[in-house]
């Protein structure tokens, strides 16, 4: 177990980026994952612990033209009740209502949920479905990475050690875009997903288009459902299509057997939830 020697709490992204450029830093925001992982020994603290919660530029949800920006420090509770989210990204609000418990939602930040890179991370799946980018800041400047390309494995991302995830950017969904989020675990609250699905599209005259699908807890990273998307795009949303989509979804996911569920059961849940959402949006 490593001990923290320095504690810093920068007030700006610039200061934070400078600290990251100077050497190994452990970043803390809500701490709901970090505290458990350092406590169990799964990850070790760097010598410097940097609390980013005082950085005002990383807070809040805003809209600029066709782009919605969610500050990385936005808590899950804030996502649940934010007016912009409710209007433009309702599937994110739906997710926030199914996320852990009130206490954890109050502390957890969406940036932290993404950087934790859990294959089951609830916050990630609807944002991926909406085609979000993450904004990574460093002393050298900012870069945007598609959330769908951000993860490389459980707990692993393309974010460099000297980078800070400062915001999520999402293009406003097309007019009439409708979606849903499904998550299953045996408990109604305080539950890690055995499997999750976010799915959306524009349904007009019974035909679905602009389809997007993402899955959680069914592979080494949250994943996009390319085959399910392709199968659905432009199709009339009837019982046959919905059933075929459920089957495609259950086939394209790559779950494993673990202590929470078998791969077989996870595929089954993906199918059930995919069909459920399609029935709701259709």
């Amino acid at each position, binding site marked *: *177990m490593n*001990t923290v020697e320095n504690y810093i709490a920068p007030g700006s992204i610039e200061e934070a980026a400078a600290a990251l450029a100077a050497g190994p830093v452990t970043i803390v925001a809500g701490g709901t994952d970090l505290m458990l992982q350092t406590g169990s020994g799964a990850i070790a603290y760097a010598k410097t612990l940097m609390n980013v919660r005082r950085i005002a530029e990383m807070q809040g949800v805003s809209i600029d033209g066709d782009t919605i920006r969610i500050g990385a420090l936005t808590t899950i509770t804030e996502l649940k009740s934010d007016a912009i989210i409710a209007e433009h990204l309702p599937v994110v609000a739906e997710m926030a209502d199914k996320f852990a418990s009130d206490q954890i939602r109050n502390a957890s930040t969406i940036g932290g949920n993404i950087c934790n890179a859990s294959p089951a991370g609830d916050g990630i799946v609807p944002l991926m479905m909406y085609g979000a980018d993450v904004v990574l800041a460093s002393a050298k400047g900012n870069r945007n990475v598609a959330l769908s390309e951000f993860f490389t494995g459980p707990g692993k991302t393309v974010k460099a050690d000297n980078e800070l995830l400062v915001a999520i950017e999402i293009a406003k969904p097309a007019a009439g875009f409708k979606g849903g989020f499904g998550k299953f675990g*045996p*408990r109604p609250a305080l539950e890690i997903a055995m499997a999750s699905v976010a799915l959306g599209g524009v349904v007009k005259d019974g035909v679905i288009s602009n389809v997007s699908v993402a899955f959680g807890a069914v592979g080494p990273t949250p994943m996009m459902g390319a085959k399910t998307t392709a199968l659905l795009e432009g199709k009339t949303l009837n019982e046959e299509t919905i059933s075929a989509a459920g089957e495609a979804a259950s086939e394209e996911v790559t779950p494993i057997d673990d202590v929470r569920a*078998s791969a*077989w059961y996870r595929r089954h849940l993906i199918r059930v939830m995919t069909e459920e959402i399609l029935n709701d949006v259709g």
Partner: protein
Amino acid sequence: MDQIVEKPDTLIGAAFPKPDAPDKVVGKTTYINDMVLPRMLVAKIKRTDRVHAKILSVDISEAEKVPGIVAIATAENSPKGLIGVLKDNPPLKGDKVRCIRDEIAGVAGETEEAVNRALELIKVEYEDLPTVFDPEEALKEGAPLIHEDKPGNIGLTFDFEHGDVKKAEAESDVVLEEKYELHYVTHTCMGPGCVIADFDTHGKLTIYTQTQYPYNYKMDLAPALDIPAGDIRVIQPPTGGAFGSKLDVYPFEPIAVYLAKIARRPVKLFFSREEEFIASPTRQPARVYIKQGAKKDGTITFRDVQVYLNNGGYTSWGATIPAVMMRTMTGHFRIPNVEFHSVAPYTNNPFAGSFRGYGNVQATYVTATLMDKMAEELGMDPIEFRLKNAQEPGERTPQNSLLKNAALADCIKISAEKTDFLKKHAEYTEARKTPGRIRQGIGIATSVHNAGGAKIHKSDGCGTILTMDDYGRATVITGASEIGQGIDAVITQLVSEELGIPPSDVLIANDDSAIGPWDVGVHASRTTFIAGNSARNAAVKAKQQILAAAARQSNVSADKLELRGGHVVQKDNGVSVTKLDRLIRAMHFAGEDAELVMVSEYYEPPSELEDKNHVGDISAAYAHGAYITELEVDTLTGGVKLHKITAVQDVGKVINKLGIEGQMEGGIAQGIGYGLSEELIIEEGIVKNPNFRDYKVVTAPEMPEIECHFIEDDEETGPFGAKGISELPCIIPGASIANAVYNAIGVRFDNPPITPEKIVRALHGGKAEAAE
């Protein structure tokens, strides 16, 4: 002018708040985990990472160099005494390790950080040994031997026979033969394991512990310490739950003592939450083969039971659960012919201890689901079949439990009426024939449990010392431990009632073995009954002494006086003769006739030990319960949603309405966990889910509505008629859930917990692809 004292409302049956509750709610309670003694060191345990291996060497040289490390205890520098029910467990392992919990060293230091660092630096070399994890495999010839002195890996066995099972089977019209696999669950106490050991300069030990049996605890602890039991003083600070998990001595306790001895300083040893999951005892898992027969008219003819208990590496109370399991297997419903055999083979799994309900949780899951299966086989409804075989008051079971006022039939009838059981049961069975995603189900389960103590030691008694001070206040020193279950409230009510003083004038002292009189411990639903009788009898003695003095002073005969509202009053008109505190001072300061009100009582219940054939009326009373669960099953996800549990239980007499409802609801939450969600997953001896994320205790949103109906039949030997009540609420719900799930979807689960995945597999196949 005469003062009239009105008779206050009785406290018996009142909703009386637990005296310890307000401090717990506001965070003021100093639990043992919060305690800090001057110069105290903190300590932790170096555990093995093997399940069966020879220990070749233990190197502590690097660990000793860590700044702040004061003492390291290993098998080499520690006493060699053994602990456990069969004295088969060395607190520190020197020759070999037998399960994943095994303790290699204890480390004490100034800070937790230093101790953690030292733990990492202890190097252990092993030679792995062949392993065995399955109890039946462990009995086979050539199986790896866990203890060299236990040939065949055989631990405890229990055997009971009554009547002629073979003949009864031949004469049966219907015979069912089933196999059950009952799983590992653990107590999940809010307060993880913790102990503080402190020697004085005379070599006497004070141990601060979470134990729930402080007096025999000394006897079990002493052999491991090389000190006389009499040199141990047991202090019981407030503890965050026990539920049976603190009914034995476990290795961490002597290890803390070894460290305190070496360091010559107080040592506090504590568990992390992960360690609590891995290293505290579990409920005993059981593999049960059972055969039951019946005549066409529904009369049960026999039961034949063979149980394999996975003993794990060492023997604690888990292996003794047949003592309780057997009473239900052989004596719940009228079973004219019965055989029960059990064996607890050693394996390389972690080992089990006692847990609320003891073997009866397992026995009830088996028997209550089997009763349903048999009813269906016979074409009878679940209520009719049970009533046909329910004992009448006054019957004796094959093991000689005297069911004096058996309320089984009443429990069944009332619960069925309250829930409209038969109508719903038939309707939901019928509904299975038509398609639909959500299925409703209703299920009943019943059980019986000792409710007037349980004589498993030569005495099942409890002592009380009651004194009254010069201000009319009572101090009750009881042997009974308060581990959160609410005995302080019950004793306060009983004493307050007898002495006619307000409950706020009663103080309970029960946290120090140097002061308290002997008691067996908190187990077997015994404390309200045994300690309650003891406290009440003591209060009656004090009352007699007081009334005798009042009679001398007032020239009114004692039988015409009573205590009421802090006064001695005339029974017939309530006229105060004297204030109680004034009388007590007068008694105290009476010159040569001076007396203090200071009485003692040792209550021994009218019960008997089992003989060597397991026959004996071990409890002064027995209680029945019938619980009905209503639920729905999502046939696509396998999710189960509980609507309501209706609990009908024979309680003798309610003493504390708040306390009894709290115990019922808490027990039901544990029972639901057993049936639906909780499982300590152990694969090849390793605990796979040692955390609250993956060990699914029931949380508030999953709790159904609970409706309790108390049958109050005034047990003649109980305090104000009360029986013990606390285990049945944990024992029965799992089986009633299983029966309700069957009613909903037509699938039996003989391997709880009934998880969503098991339900989906059963309904949608996929067994071939299933990874087990």
